[in-house]
């Protein structure tokens, strides 16, 4: 049977058939076996062919100078000139080094073909496509099984990353490993320095990280030096950002009309005699948003010789936010060197120095949503207008004007390592890493009042200064054994690691400053009467033992087993250690002899894994009740203060490890010489003894609830990834699609628990989520709505709660008892998408390149909680214009009120959160070699790109990506977020 591959190659080469003569021959390995599917190209053209099942080929060559290029995966390529020959037999040598890609795994690297775990890799060119300070945002839509949700659009702010759904009710973010340093926060990392990112998804891959890997592991490798002459890179981009969309709010006249209707509906006199006179009024969103630039500059040098390899880079990133007054600036220096001290000893370091500045915007996003549109920004005299005459919401312009809230940070993240090869097969590695952070922030408020009657004012100038510092060290010592025999490959790893983290903050405040300009923003300038100070600290430590065996038999059968024991200071003595084993097997079917007769498959692998991992992401002292002091009381005729202190927060001394059992089965395939590639994984992740900070009744009287081991949750689904790539002469392209499904189900709750409520909504803090067995974590819980009561007879014929009048929402009597009660609340949606997907297209032709990425999610719901919280007659979303004003006028938007029946949590406030987004579109042009070589450059590329240009969604808020970094039982609740931006970027990338 002829391979499809050969047929296609043959077709592609038809165009060359008129050439001078035909060359035929056989390609074999050094041992004489014929090689099937070897690629043969005529250099400098798109013409080529491939060997057939007998290893023979036939190709028409245009002239005697033609060069034939033979390439074959796993073998060293050859370039030969047949000249006048008509027969040319070729022997290719196996290339052990290049047999396939090497993938970074925990505490080492592995050949991709030997992997038994589910690991996805992203290369640096993909990383650079999104103009962002944050690596997390770059992962969005790039890896099957990974959901990335920006916390907000604030410059410099990160994203919530969830790998394969949500296993824990607690902090569910993955572990980041940057050049061997274990970190929870990678905001310092400059995307331009990244060489590759590996996402470890299944237990076989993550178990070596034990407790730290329960929510998946993201390994980031930064650019390393290489043994060649110095190469320089300069890259820069400029971008312009705008808010993706504004929320559709009513205008001045509409506001006054609706406000009058509220008053009438609630039994008061209308307030505005002539709504028409207010016209369009003020759009406060125009006031707070701006078009904001991003600038990025990077210069790096890379090279080395037999003794030293180096990669040095300097980067400056400067992003203003789309909300006025926000800005993030960061300068990073990275020095990655490796030194060969002796034949068997290498030492190296990866050091990154980071200085950052953060300008925090005034808290105006909610104000712009709530403020009355009938108030101008400035009055007729040019002074700030008072927005607080009727409601306690200030003028956002005033808040922006008087806001001073800035921070700066210094951070050093670095590791040094020593690697020694011993007794031929052993490698010892000792790695010591440090992460030292210092942050400082200042907040100053001058004395001001908008008008003498305004609630928006400040009567004493005040400055607060905070300074914090954290220090984390990690020391890892591993010994590995690696040996190859003819049919066996064995890699054994063992090690000990220790890590400690200490945080301390120190701060104070004073009032009554002599001046309002920044030279006075030092505590000493204020009055000592009224000064305050604080100083707090916490620390944690871990001590771990790890081991792993990788065994490969005949390149076909793969086995991995790993074990890790973690000791954590967060748990009490009795529950201090957790033990985490994993096993995995793999089968490289393509390497079976019988597969040589099926050359269609260039790669086919099955793998399966099982493992247990733990999670200790709880507060440093969650097991121990601590005392809150400064609960002062006043006593005495001269009104003196006395200290007060008590144990106002609860703790759980019996707290123990959360444990996740994960099974994974998958297959990988490559067809047509790997032009079509893909993989499919099925996973089941069950988390037991989930650590939950669940709300407890207020009558217990604690200020904070304890963390308990409370539930068992299962995530299962499919991860898939398919791509097709092809080159035709100067044209090459790649199409990829990836996705993952998540089915999240709570299997059990802890003893005595039948439900876990969460999520405070509306003015009074209604609980909008209810976690119960059989439904997803944090499922929305409220009333179903079946239209409105149109008239009195509707009120009589349908069940009611009691206070309803015509025009009110008609809740569904789900338990059919004839009345509407709280027992009729039911499941009304899940914040967890059932499908997360992305598709990517890239193409290149003669120096031009194009890349288009889409991403999206499907099936999740969002609670529009900002619409629920009406403390008074605030501004209205445009949806209120469709309100009920009499029988038949609406069957969905009730009569307008500020509270009551229609503001109980119901489907009225639940919206579809599905979306698809054109994440990036980038178009680039690389100058031809002739041009660049003339000016002594090796390459110069220009590009333009657009990010978040189009989003298809039904959600009415700024963005359908609503997350919650701190509580998994209150996700998908939009209380008003810093919106994300759409960005247009122009950039340059030059190598010399």
């Amino acid at each position, binding site marked *: 049977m002829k391979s499809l591959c050969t047929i296609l190659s043959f077709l592609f080469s038809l165009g060359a058939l008129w050439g001078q003569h035909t060359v035929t021959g056989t390609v074999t390995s050094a041992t004489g076996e014929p090689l099937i599917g070897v690629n043969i190209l005529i250099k400098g053209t798109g013409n080529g062919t491939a060997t057939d099942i007998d290893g023979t080929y036939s190709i028409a060559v245009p002239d005697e100078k033609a060069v034939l290029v033979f390439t074959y995966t796993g073998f060293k390529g050859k370039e030969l000139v047949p000249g006048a020959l008509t027969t040319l037999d070729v022997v290719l040598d196996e290339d052990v080094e290049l047999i396939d890609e090497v993938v970074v795994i925990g505490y080492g690297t592995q050949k991709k073909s030997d992997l038994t775990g589910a690991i996805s890799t992203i290369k640096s060119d993909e990383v650079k496509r999104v103009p962002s300070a944050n690596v997390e945002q770059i992962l969005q839509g790039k890896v099957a099984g990974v959901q990335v949700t920006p916390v907000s659009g604030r410059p410099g702010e990160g994203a919530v990353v969830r790998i394969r759904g949500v296993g824990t009710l607690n902090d569910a973010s993955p572990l980041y490993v940057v050049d061997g340093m274990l970190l929870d926060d990678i905001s310092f990392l400059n995307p331009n320095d990244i060489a590759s990112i590996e996402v470890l998804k299944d237990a076989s891959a993550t178990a070596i990280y034990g407790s730290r890997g329960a929510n998946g592991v993201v390994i980031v490798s930064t650019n390393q030096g290489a043994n060649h002459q110095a190469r320089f890179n300069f890259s820069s981009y400029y971008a312009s950002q705008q808010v993706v969309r504004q929320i559709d709010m009513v205008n001045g006249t509409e506001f006054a009309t609706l406000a009058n209707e509220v008053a009438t509906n609630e039994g008061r006199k209308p307030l505005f005699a002539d709504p028409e006179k207010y016209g369009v009024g003020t759009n406060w969103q125009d006031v707070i948003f701006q078009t904001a630039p991003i600038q990025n500059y990077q210069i790096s040098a890379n090279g080395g010789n037999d003794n030293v390899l180096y990669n040095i880079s300097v980067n400056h990133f400067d992003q203003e936010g789309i909300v006025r007054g926000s800005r993030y600036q960061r300068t990073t220096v990275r020095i990655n060197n490796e030194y060969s001290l002796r034949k068997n000893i290498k030492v190296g370091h990866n050091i990154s120095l980071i200085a950052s500045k953060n300008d925090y915007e005034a808290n105006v996003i909610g104000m712009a949503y709530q403020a009355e549109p009938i108030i101008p920004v400035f009055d007729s005299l040019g002074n700030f207008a008072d927005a607080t005459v009727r409601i306690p919401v200030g003028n956002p312009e005033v808040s922006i004007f008087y806001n001073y809230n800035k921070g700066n940070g210094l951070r050093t993240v670095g590791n040094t390592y020593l690697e020694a090869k011993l007794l031929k097969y052993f490698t010892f590695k000792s790695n010591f890493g440090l992460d030292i952070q210092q942050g400082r922030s200042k907040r100053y408020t001058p004395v001001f009042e908008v008008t003498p009657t305004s609630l928006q004012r400040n009567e004493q100038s005040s400055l607060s200064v905070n300074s914090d510092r954290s220090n984390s060290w990690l020391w890892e010592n591993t010994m590995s054994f690696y040996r190859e025999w003819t049919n066996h490959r064995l890699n054994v790893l063992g090690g000990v690691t220790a890590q400690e983290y200490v945080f301390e903050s120190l701060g104070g405040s004073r009032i009554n400053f002599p001046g309002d300009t920044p030279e006075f923003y030092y505590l000493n300038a204020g009055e000592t009467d009224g000064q305050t100070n604080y100083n707090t600290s916490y620390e944690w430590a871990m001590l771990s033992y790890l081991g792993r065996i990788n065994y490969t038999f005949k390149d076909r059968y793969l086995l991995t087993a790993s074990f890790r024991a973690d000791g954590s200071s967060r748990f009490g003595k009795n529950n201090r250690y957790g033990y985490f084993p994993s096993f995995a097997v793999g089968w490289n079917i393509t390497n079976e002899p019988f597969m040589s007769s099926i050359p269609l498959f260039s790669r086919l692998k099955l793998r399966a894994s099982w493992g247990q991992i733990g999670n200790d992401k709880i507060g440093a002292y969650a097991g121990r009740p601590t005392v809150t002091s400064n609960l002062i009381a006043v006593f005495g005729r001269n009104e003196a203060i006395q200290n007060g202190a008590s144990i106002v927060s609860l*703790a759980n001394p019996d707290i123990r490890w959360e444990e996740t059992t994960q099974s994974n089965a998958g297959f990988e395939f490559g067809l047509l010489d790997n032009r079509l590639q893909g993989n499919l994984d099925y996973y089941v992740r069950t988390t037991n003894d989930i650590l939950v900070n669940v709300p407890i009744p207020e009558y217990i*009287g604690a200020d904070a609830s304890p963390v308990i081991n409370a539930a068992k949750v299962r995530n299962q689904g499919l991860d898939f990834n398919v791509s097709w790539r092809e080159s035709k002469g100067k044209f090459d392209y790649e199409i990829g699609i990836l996705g993952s499904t998540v089915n999240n189900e709570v299997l059990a709750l802890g003893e005595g628990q039948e439900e876990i409520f969460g999520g405070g909504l509306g*003015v009074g803090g209604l609980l909008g989520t209810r976690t119960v067995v059989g439904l997803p974590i944090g499922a929305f819980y409220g009333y179903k709505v079946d239209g409105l009561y149109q008239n009195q007879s509707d009120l009589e014929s349908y069940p009611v709660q009691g206070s309803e009048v015509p025009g009110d929402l008609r809740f569904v009597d789900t338990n059919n008892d004839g009345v509407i009660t709280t027992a009729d609340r039911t499941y009304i949606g899940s914040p967890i998408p059932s499908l997360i997907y992305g598709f990517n297209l890239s193409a290149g032709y003669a120096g031009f390149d194009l890349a288009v990425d889409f991403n999206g999610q499907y099936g999740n719901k969002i609670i529009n909680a900002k619409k629920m919280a009406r403390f008074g007659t605030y501004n209205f979303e445009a949806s209120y214009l469709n309100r009920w004003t009499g029988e038949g006028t609406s069957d969905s938007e009730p009569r307008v009120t500020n509270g009551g029946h229609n503001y109980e949590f119901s489907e009225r406030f639940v919206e579809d959160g599905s979306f698809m987004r054109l994440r990036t579109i980038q178009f680039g042009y690389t100058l031809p070699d002739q041009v660049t070589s003339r000016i002594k450059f090796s390459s110069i590329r220009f590009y333009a790109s657009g990010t978040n240009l189009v989003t298809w969604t039904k959600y009415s808020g700024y963005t359908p990506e609503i997350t919650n970094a701190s509580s998994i039982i209150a996700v998908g609740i939009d209380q008003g977020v810093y919106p994300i931006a759409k960005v247009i970027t122009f950039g340059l990338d030059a190598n010399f």
Partner: protein
Amino acid sequence: MKSIHQSIILAGLLLMIPLQGCQDLLEKKPLGQLTSDNFFQNETHALWATNAVYNLLRNWEVHVFSYIGMTDIVSDDADKGSTPNDANFLLEIDDFTYDAGNLAMSTVWSGYFRGIYRANLAIDNIPNIDMNENLKARYIAENKFLRAYFYFTLVRWFGDLPLILKPLTPDEYKQPRVPAADVYAAIIQDLQDAADVLPDSYPATETGRATRGAANAYLAKVYLTIGDFGKAEEFAMKVINSGVYGLFPDYAKLFLPEGENSIESVFEVQSTALDIGGAGSQYNEVQGVRGVPNLGWGFNRPSDDLIAEFERGDPRRDATILYVGEVLPDGSAYVQDNPEIVGERYNQKAWVPEHTGGNGNGPGNIRLFRYAEVLLIAAEALNENGNTAQALTYLNMVRARARGGKAVLPDVTLTDKSTLRNAIWHERRVELGMEQHRWFDLLRQGRADQVMAKLKPKFTAGKNELFPIPQSEIDLSGGQMTQNPGY
């Protein structure tokens, strides 16, 4: 070969170091703060834990916005006030359209139960401390007094309650409501225990702590509330006969700074405006003039109905209500008209002079229990118990002080039990107006329906006498708690 040996030794050492040196790495103690392991160890800790309960009395959740709404605004004494578009949740209380999701109920619920929890912690732990036994007994008594106070307020708002008299363990978190009568029994027990131990007074540095007089006064009030007039008389008389208290001569000045901790003060929340803040309360701000002068948010507007209750020439009317055009008590400014407020007027008893830290740093002590009220409780109980003459004596003491030497408010001479009862109730309303007593008076007098229904059409008898339990609490109780009727 030598270098290989060295390498092996080095590697061995490096592997061993974490094993040997890091075992105590995992022992981490909380830094900069005490824990349950080392708290409640000495006298100072007992004091701190007790002060932490007093701390809550100035708290936003206990005696500020929602509290005003659920005492004065809900009653016939006051309307919501402020601008019509502000604080919808208080408007719902004023109009009796609130439901179980209302902010005020969830706010006070958590605030008062936090107080109960802190008191429980102290009552549970202080007995084990090795310290001065007298002081130990007093601290426990103070905590019992405060626990009783929190429960007394809650039970009148919500009726049946979870009765929690010690810190709960996780398996006890699901609590049902127990009948209000059981809650009252616990309150009485706590107040009795407190009255047995607490001193009649404190040194000048400790003014504001609970006294025996305060415990007895609350016992009188609790018994009055549950209709036990014999006991109400008994405890009111204990306070009167203690000789500790008297009436402050000038009614209007009683609510100014000079009236703080006066001879009339039985229990009041201590508050002061320090430059650093943290010792004031927002009680004054939420009720302060909105507009010019800019003193606050303007809530709790004295109602027309309250104004009509004052007898002709009663000086207390002017001391209670601050009108537009009126000069402030310290003469610093006059109240200018705010066009956004309909029928603008304010609670003058919540007014405080200029102070440091802005309006939110209010220095006004919150007068929770005045001797005048003790006299009126005594009068009411005595009348019910048939001792008319003595009832009139105490009633007329209050009127005499109020009249301030003017030819108004003549002595009451009624002898019919029922008409005298009405006269005492009238006196309570004008004497204690805008001091957050009225709603509870209407409830215990069984008159809420009769009084409120004609003022507020949405008032529903059999429902609005109790506030709803916050829906979130019913949800979190795992179905143990039930809702009040009608909600």
